[in-house]
């Protein structure tokens, strides 16, 4: 009996640790970008959701904009422009997993900015886009 309760306690602890724990919230990720921008951008004035929205929706000299895959509505499921693979919504209000893993955030900004702009995005641009995505309601 005692052994059983030890076993259940152990199972409970193991169960807790395999819960999908999001290391950070999108707001944490935004504030990390903010401190980075404050250090690296001279005359940093803060992030702007309006600027982020424009950045998200226009083309930057290449064939694709962010909306080519993520659609005009960041709360909607997108679709890869070439392969048709569905892409989960970008807005944290519609997809709780978004912007909870800083490593993943960096990886995808790097890859997708390269596709859309042929360069990496600045911290200002990344923060503006995240500020915009955080304003989207489902």
């Amino acid at each position, binding site marked *: 009996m005692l052994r059983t309760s030890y076993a259940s306690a152990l199972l409970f602890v193991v169960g807790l640790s395999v819960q999908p724990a999001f290391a950070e919230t999108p707001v944490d990720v935004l504030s990390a970008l903010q401190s980075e921008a404050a250090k690296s951008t001279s005359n940093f004035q803060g992030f702007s959701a309006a600027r982020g929205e424009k950045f998200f929706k226009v083309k930057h000299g290449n064939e694709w904009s962010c909306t080519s895959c993520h659609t005009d509505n960041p709360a909607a499921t997108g679709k*890869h422009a*070439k*392969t*048709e*693979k569905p892409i989960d919504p970008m807005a944290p209000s519609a997809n709780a997993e978004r912007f909870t893993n800083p490593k993943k955030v960096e990886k995808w900004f790097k*890859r997708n900015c*390269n596709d859309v702009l042929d360069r990496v995005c600045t911290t200002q641009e990344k923060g503006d886009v995240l500020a915009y995505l955080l304003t989207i309601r489902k």
Partner: protein
Amino acid sequence: MLKNHMNSRWTIAAAVLLMSVTMTVAHAEDDDEDEGGSRSKKGSSNPVTNAKWKDECGSCHLAYPPRFLSAESWRAVMSGLDKHFGSNASLDAAAATEIGDFLAKNASTKQRNSSNGIEPPLRISDTRWFESEHRKVADRTWKDPKVKSPSNCAACHTQAQSGSYNEHDIRMPK
């Protein structure tokens, strides 16, 4: 006595040879490997998988099963990720090694020669095997907006996401 002994040895050798030839032919016809990974006797599929592969290779497109290309093709794909069909899909070194090993280990053991003469093929759809498997697919099906590209396996292979390409799961778009 010695002659008899020799005779029986030859008979066994011939039988073994015959069996192995028969088994090879049966295996080639059946080609289960192409449909659903390692399969149990009942035909349920248990495809090989790797979390990193699924995550990294399965974000922009379906994580194509390793058995669809030869190890040589996968090595070529992995060494050219910075120019991956128009995108820079570079990985960090640890992920590249893990995924490269997984692909090479589970790659096709059969020939996956190119259909356009450029070896090794980098696209699964550029293999003769792919062309042969899809020879009955009509032109209008390929052009269907729901299919759009041969890379869009899941348009017809309804269980592609879970790694099964069994023909019983094929549903042509209507």
